[in-house]
């Protein structure tokens, strides 16, 4: 039986943060798809104003199963290979239902390498957390293979895998790998794409994607796990921003303005199931198109005297995640040889995105709640309900396109973690882990990007080696990198 002390709990939290940072640093990141550029002989900028973030047209393309929203066949420059003639539909079930595969191998690659400049660490901080070099060249150093496309009218697929991260031959991991059937409700008269289904491993239908983020740093709230105080059982490893395995039903009716999705997932991040129960994720969002001109409002992209752009719009969303962990009495996660206890948990929140010409504003709020239990070793050992472990936080940010190739970025991340506070000394100077991250992105070409981001982080406590007093140090970081896809 393991007992936490105040100090060890604190270091456990810090260690968890460090581990999380490293996990997120190596989390697979999907990207733009040059395979589609080849298929349609079009530039990346058709779907991305700043890859891998999708513009309005890219969103419509994705929601339509990686096809142009209208008259797709007329735009395809690389015709598909038919797996049976279309007329074979009439022979079904006496024949295999006809399908198709891309006429070329839909493979694309992405490389990302960053230069990192860290703030000089004080001696006490090094003693406590370990030494971090001032500079690090090309870390992470990631090579990703991506394949995506469609298998005919209704089927689409996506696979991305970091085949090398950091060191030579070091394995990364699969990000997403799924198959989607679009427009399942067509036969029962539902509007186009009102009901789709997706199977496999996928990032949840998050309000703001982590896998396809344009930023060098992750959204902190997405990586928040939940850890109960000393002697309690909560030790929830679910990472909101991680890929999950499961089945997702969803739809984008009303010209893509309304989005809904319900996913049933393992709740084990990208790993195998570790418990019998399944988690459920629900997301609803509505976009309010603020274009005055009705023609622009209904078009895939907004028209304007200076050329097309994303619609002036506001999207409001809601999400809810529910799961049930099964914890061992000693706080270790998932069933073992000890008595276990069920601990339901949920994450709930809302989001907002506002687009106006060259400006994009966004924000997300999240509240997390985990049931918790207090274990007493005994004998006899007892277990009783304990105060829930909670956290809250979110992020807000803005992007501005000074030119189509020069984008200023900013995001602010905040996490108020109950677990941080109750596990010994606070993990932040002001009881909030927060970070300001201004940055820039330069599209040297449509497929080559130079990025930079300064991360002004929260003050982390450490003991002065001479006086023993608690001091705070901000391990601020500047990162710059190159990112290209082909």
């Amino acid at each position, binding site marked *: 039986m393991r007992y936490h002390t105040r100090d060890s709990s604190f270091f456990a939290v810090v260690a968890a943060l460090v581990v999380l940072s490293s996990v997120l640093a190596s989390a697979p990141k999907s990207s733009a798809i040059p395979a589609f550029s080849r298929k349609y002989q*079009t530039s990346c900028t058709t779907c991305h104003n700043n890859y891998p973030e999708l513009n309005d047209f890219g969103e419509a393309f994705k929601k339509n199963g990686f096809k142009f929203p*209208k008259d797709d066949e007329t735009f395809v420059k690389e015709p598909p290979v038919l797996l049976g003639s279309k007329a074979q539909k009439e022979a079904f079930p006496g024949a295999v239902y006809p399908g198709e595969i891309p006429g070329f191998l839909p493979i694309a690659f992405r490389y990302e390498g960053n230069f990192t400049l860290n703030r000089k660490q004080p001696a006490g901080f090094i003693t406590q957390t370990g030494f971090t070099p001032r500079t690090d060249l090309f870390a992470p150093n990631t090579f990703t293979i991506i394949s995506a496309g469609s298998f005919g009218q209704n089927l689409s697929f996506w696979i991305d895998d970091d085949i090398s991260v950091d060191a030579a031959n070091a394995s990364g991991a699969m990000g997403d790998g799924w198959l989607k059937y679009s427009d399942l409700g067509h036969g029962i008269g539902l509007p186009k794409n009102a009901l789709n289904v997706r199977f496999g491993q996928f990032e949840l239908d998050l309000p703001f994607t982590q896998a396809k983020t344009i930023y060098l740093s992750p959204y902190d709230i997405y990586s928040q796990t939940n850890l109960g105080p000393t002697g309690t059982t909560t030790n929830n490893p679910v990472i909101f921003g991680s890929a999950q395995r499961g089945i997702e039903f969803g739809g984008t009716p009303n010209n893509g303005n309304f989005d809904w999705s319900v996913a049933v997932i393992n709740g084990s991040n990208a790993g195998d199931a570790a418990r019998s129960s399944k988690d459920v994720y629900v997301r609803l969002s509505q976009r309010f198109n603020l274009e005055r001109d009705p023609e622009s409002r209904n078009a895939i992209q907004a028209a304007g005297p200076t050329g097309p752009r994303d619609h002036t719009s506001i999207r409001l969303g809601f999400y809810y995640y529910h799961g049930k962990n099964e914890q061992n009495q000693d706080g270790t996660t998932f069933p073992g040889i000890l008595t276990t206890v069920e601990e339901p948990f949920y994450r709930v929140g809302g989001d907002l995105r506002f687009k106006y010409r060259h400006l994009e504003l966004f924000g997300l709020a999240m509240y997390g709640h985990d049931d918790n239990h207090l274990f007493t070793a005994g004998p006899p050992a007892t277990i009783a309900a304990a105060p829930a472990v909670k956290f809250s936080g979110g992020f807000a940010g803005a992007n501005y396109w000074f030119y189509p190739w020069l984008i200023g970025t900013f995001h602010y991340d905040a996490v108020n973690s109950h677990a941080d506070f109750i596990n010994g000394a606070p993990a932040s100077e002001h009881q909030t882990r927060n970070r300001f991250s201004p940055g820039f992105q330069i599209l040297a070409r449509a497929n080559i990007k130079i990025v930079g981001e300064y991360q002004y982080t929260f003050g982390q406590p450490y003991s002065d080696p001479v006086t023993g007093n608690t001091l705070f140090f901000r391990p601020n970081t500047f990162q710059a990198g190159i990112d290209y896809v082909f």
Partner: protein
Amino acid sequence: MSLVKIAAKGVAVGLTLALVSVVKANEIKGKVSVQGIKSAENIAVYVDVIPDKKFDAPKDPVVVDQRKMAFVPHVVAAQQGTTVEFLNSDSVGHNVYWPSISGNKKLAHNLGTWPKGEKKPFQFNDVGVASLLCNVHPEMSGYVVVTPTPYFAVTDKDGNFEIKNIPAGKYTLKTWSEDGKPTTQAVDVSGATASVELTVKK
């Protein structure tokens, strides 16, 4: 009818015939060869400014289509003052703009974006070349070559061209191509058909 009157009529008919022969439409036929360029297609060939000669702007517009995410035709030549109508035949929005006319950025223009089936006109009053671009689909490319005279043509895939209805005279023939340097060549249109061989180099 007196002999004098008959003679006068004969002279008048003769003069009329002579005048007709003077303004009789001739043509320039030619072939453009290329060096260091992939194709001799889509090269504009036109008669340069004719001193003391002015031409009315054409009444009929020229249409440039946007079809399957391409400007069709890729190169269009048009006399100064011509109205070019830009049609969108695609079911995606297209934008048409040109950042300059022959490098003069003051003549840049953005026509905006419009949906399928609609046209937007623009009258090209400045001689030069407008590089047509679409800021939705950067791979789209087209050219409007605005010429000072109504005597122009665009080469076919073999580099052949014909400039019809040109009065007899001595002219300066010029070329414009997407990848090659401009070429200038004198041409004497005295017979019904003047044959020209031009070479455009990269």
